[in-house]
Every structure is written in structure tokens, then in C-alpha cells.
């Protein structure tokens, strides 16, 4: 056991991760209270006709499994409630997600609800990747005409002509900010700069598992109104969606969470076995001495 070659460990990890994915098995996720707060906020948020929700996708393909699933479940909830959403990113690698995720969610909703239509321009608008990091947020927060500030969407259409966005004037018309990222320091940028005189937005954040301790500081201080903690947060959010909208099929978040749960179990097992082997070896060494 002490000389257990790592290729066997790799094989076990591959099996633990892939079997639930291939069989599409999902088990009920653990309750995430921070995700509950995010869900309740989005369920109860009231949007005036001139208001929108801003969703920032600041993640790349490397953390798509966690952040992508979070983006999907939150966007689905907003779309189900017919709340217009503006999507944008400060991270260049997120650009393809701004297009693919809403299209995927809209297609799923239309397949589930024949006769109902979710359309680009009415239900969501893609503002694309915006270079400039915190300068974008600073300028956006101080802008007196955010339609003019963004100018055009990712497809070069004038925002003043897009139904979902044309009535929004200032940053105060952004009723809720959903920031999804696993990048170090990205959430802090929004918390520092995305605010104006007399306006502090409600913020829901989706983070990767590794950045949960960082995000909890802001949840505890009240700067975050809700938090989706890694894939577990997305899976719990998805479970609540399924409860409220029973026709919804099992989605990727719950299957990924199950797969990751099996891998975690394996890691726990390996840690225990590793320690037992180490203790036994140490005892044997003492006995021989």
C-alpha cells in the first residue's frame, strides 16, 4: 500500500468522476444556506419596467464546471420570472459563455414550455466583453446614461433599440447584480467600484469552491446578499428550482455535484488509508528498532 503507484489513484479518480457523469446519476445535494439566500432574493425581487438585472460572467473554460453551472441556474430562475437580464464580462475568456449559456437556457425553457418563447433582446441582452477592468465599473457607476455608456451590444446593435435595455438610464436601474467568478480579486472590484451616491446594489455572487473562504467575509459583512458556493451551491439552487418548477429536468449542476461528491469520498478514503498505512509503518519501524 505504501508503494501504491499513482496511476492506480488516477484510475480510481477517473472512475469516480466519470461513472456518475456517464450514467447521469444525481443524488439530492446538501443544503447550502448561502445559496438559499440567493434563491429567496431572486424569487422575491421586484423589477420595475425600467429596471434590469446585470449578470457578470467573469470566468473562463478552466472553471466552467462550477461557474458555468451557477450561471445557468441563476439565469434560468431570472428567465422563468421574465426578468430582463444584461450579461457582460470583464474577463476576455468569458466572452463565448455570454452567448452560449443564455441560448442553452432559453432552448431548454422553450422545450419545457411549448408555446412560450424566450427571445434575445427581450429576455436578455449580451453586452459582450468590456476591456478596462475596474475603470469600466467606475465609469459605469458614475454614468448618467448607461445605455449610451455601453452603446452597442455584442452583435453591434444599438442598445437604445433593444427592448430589454432601452429603459435603463442610470446604474440605479440595475436592480440586482449577479457576479460569477473564481478569479482572485474580481468580486472585490465590484464591491468597491460598482456603487454610486445613494445606491449600493444587492449582490449575488457565484464562486469556486477554492474561493469560498474569501467570499464568506463579504457574506458575513452583508455586502453579499447571497452566495452560490461552488458546484454544491449550484446544485442546491437547482434543487430548489426543481421544487418550485416541477417540470424541470435534472440538470448538469446536480449530476456534476454527484460526480464531485464521489470524488470527494474517494479523497477522504485515500486520506484515511494513507494515514493508517503511515501509522502502521511507523509502528513497524519502532518495533524493528
Amino acid at each position, binding site marked *: 500500500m505504501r508503494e501504491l503507484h499513482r496511476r492506480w489513484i488516477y484510475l480510481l479518480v477517473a472512475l469516480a468522476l466519470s461513472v456518475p457523469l456517464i450514467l447521469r446519476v444525481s443524488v439530492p445535494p446538501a443544503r447550502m444556506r448561502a445559496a438559499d439566500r440567493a434563491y429567496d432574493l431572486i424569487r422575491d425581487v421586484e423589477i420595475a419596467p425600467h429596471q434590469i438585472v446585470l449578470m457578470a460572467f467573469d470566468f473562463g473554460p*478552466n472553471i466552467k464546471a462550477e461557474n458555468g453551472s451557477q450561471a445557468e441556474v441563476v439565469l434560468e430562475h431570472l428567465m422563468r420570472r421574465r426578468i430582463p437580464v444584461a450579461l457582460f464580462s470583464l474577463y476576455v475568456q468569458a466572452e463565448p459563455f455570454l452567448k452560449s449559456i443564455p*441560448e442553452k437556457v432559453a432552448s431548454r425553457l422553450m422545450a419545457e414550455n411549448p408555446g412560450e418563447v424566450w427571445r434575445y433582446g427581450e429576455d436578455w441582452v449580451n453586452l459582450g466583453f468590456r476591456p478596462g477592468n475596474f475603470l469600466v465599473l467606475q465609469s459605469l457607476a458614475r454614468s448618467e446614461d448607461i445605455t449610451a455608456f455601453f452603446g452597442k451590444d455584442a452583435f*453591434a446593435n444599438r442598445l437604445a433599440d433593444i427592448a430589454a435595455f432601452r429603459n435603463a438610464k442610470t446604474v440605479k436601474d440595475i436592480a440586482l447584480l449577479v457576479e460569477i467568478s473564481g478569479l482572485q480579486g474580481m468580486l472585490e472590484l465590484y464591491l468597491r467600484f460598482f456603487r454610486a451616491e445613494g445606491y449600493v446594489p444587492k449582490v449575488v455572487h457565484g464562486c469556486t469552491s477554492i474561493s469560498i*473562504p474569501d467570499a464568506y467575509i463579504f*457574506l*458575513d459583512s452583508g455586502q453579499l446578499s447571497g452566495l452560490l458556493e461552488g458546484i454544491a451551491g449550484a446544485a442546491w439552487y437547482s434543487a430548489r428550482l426543481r421544487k418550485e418548477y416541477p417540470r424541470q429536468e435534472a440538470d448538469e449542476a446536480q449530476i456534476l455535484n454527484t460526480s464531485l461528491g464521489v*470524488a*470527494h469520498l474517494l479523497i477522504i478514503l485515500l486520506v484515511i488509508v494513507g494515514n493508517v498505512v*503511515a501509522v502502521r509503518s511507523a509502528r513497524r519501524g519502532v518495533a524493528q528498532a
Partner: protein
Amino acid sequence: MRQRLIRIVTFIGGLYFFLRFVLPGDINGFQFARYNHEITNGFRAIGALTFGLGLINILLVHGSRLLFRRKGWFTSAALLFGLAFMLTVTIGEWLASARAAADADRLVMLREFAARIVADEKAGDSDPPYATRVALLLKNATLEVERVDQAARRENPAGDSAVMRGLRTELHAKINGLRGGLETISAGTAGPEALLPLAQQLSDVAATYRGILIEQHRAAVVSKLYTLLSDGLFMALGTAMFSLLAFYIASAAYRAFRIKSAESALMMTTALIVMLGQIPFGLWLWDGFPDVRMWLLTTPSTAARRAIEIGAAVAGLIMAFRMWFSVETQSFSRGER
């Protein structure tokens, strides 16, 4: 001289952002941040230029390796080919969407023309004459409506989606309404009040036509090629690279996570509780794991993280001052003082 210039610009830049943060928006009529939008746009433009710099750097490094057949020239050739191909497809996709947007904008321009005629008439501006402008508007609106009607009829060979079918029906109804509106207005008799509903109808047709163009663009070859490269290659490769971590973590957990002291035992117990509180199977053992996990994260972990963050913030502040006063010159002085 160059270093002195860098120091002066750095100091002025730092001073501007510092004062902008601490000064009120209006000081007896003087607005310190009056040109802030232009300044920040300048910084954003410089930030965007770095993409170009990166591109030039890649071309220089890998282009020379390929040209002189140095070691690894084949991988450089693959990289440059991938770069050129992705760039071509992305530009093609962007141009196609820009063309579609410009197409819908022609209707929007007519709407704005109608609104301008009304505004000028109310203001008493009659050059060129009102009737001439209305005649021009009606002529172009009629032509544009026919063009849009024809363009929107182009069907996707693979079949239309439910969204597209709905949009076509909607556009057909709106075009019929617009045609009716155009027929009832004649250049000689139409007053400004008759042009406002026409402007609204043009706007409505433009909105639906834009939706059709977006759907057509989505089904276009260049758009599908972009999706294939982005989702099929870029995403898959990026995800695969990161997923390798799972294997290393598992292997490291087996070999390195050993209880050697009371502290390491405490750390391992905490890690196990956090893991069991987050995974679905933890509930099978004890349904209190999520609550204990939550307490660990909100209380001891948050306290420790805050201490780290405060320490890092103080260090960051000191670093900022060193940069501002050019004490930290290593990065642009090439070692000389």
C-alpha cells in the same frame, strides 16, 4: 530623462486618482473629475492595446522560430495557424453580426428621420420644405419595407426554429400594419401628428426584423464555425487542462495529508468536516454536517481570512505609495538607479 518622465507621469497619475477619490464632486462650481470619462477611456484604450502587443509578440517569437526552422518550429507553425484561423473566423463572425445590425439600423434611421421632421416642423424650421422631407420619408420607407419583407423570407435550409417562426409571423403582421399606415399618409396632407405613429411602426418593425437577423446569423455557417472552434476546441482544451488538478489533488491527499501533530490533526478534521458538509453523501452519515461546515466557514475561517486580508491591504497600501513616489523602480529601471 526617460526615467524622470516616467516618474513624473506616475506621480501625476497617482495624484489625480487620489484627489479624485477624496475631493467632493463639486467645489464651488469647479468639478475636479470633469474629464474623468475621457481619462478613463484613455486608460481603457491603452489596456486594449496590450492585446495588440501580445499578438505582435507571438508573431515575432514564433514567426522567427518558424522562419529559421529552429527547434520546435512545428509547434510554432501549429500555433500560428491556429491563431490565424481563429482570428479569421472571429473577424468573419463579427463582421457578419455588424452587417446584420447595420441592416436593421436602416429602419431605425427612418424612424429617427420621421422624429426629426416632426421636431423641425414644430420648431418652425422649413429648410428643406416639410412636404419634400415627408415625400422622401414615405418613398424610402416603402422601399425599405419591401426589402425587409423579402430579406425576412429567406428560410434556413435546415428548417426554422420556433423562435424564428414566431418572429416571421410577428413581422408579417407588423409590415402589413406599416403598409397600411404608409398608404393612408400622403406627402401633401400628412401633418406632424400623423408621422409619430409611423415612426413607432418603423421602430416596431425594426425590433422584430433585428430578432430575425440575429436568428439568421445564429444559423449562418460562420457563426456555427465560430461555435465549433470556441466550444469544441477552446472550451474543451481549457477545461481538460484544469481538470488534471483533480488527479494531482487525489494523489497528494494520499501521500501528503498525514497526521503528524495536534495541529495537523485539527486541520485534517476540519477539512473532512467541510468536505462532508458540502457533498451530498455527508447527509447519509449525519445531517448536521452542513451546519457545522457553515459555522466553521463563518466563524473561525472568516476571522482568519479577515486578518490575512487586512495584512495584505496594509502591504498593498505601502506598495502603492512606493509605486506612486517611484521608490519601487525596479520594474522599469533595468537595474540602474
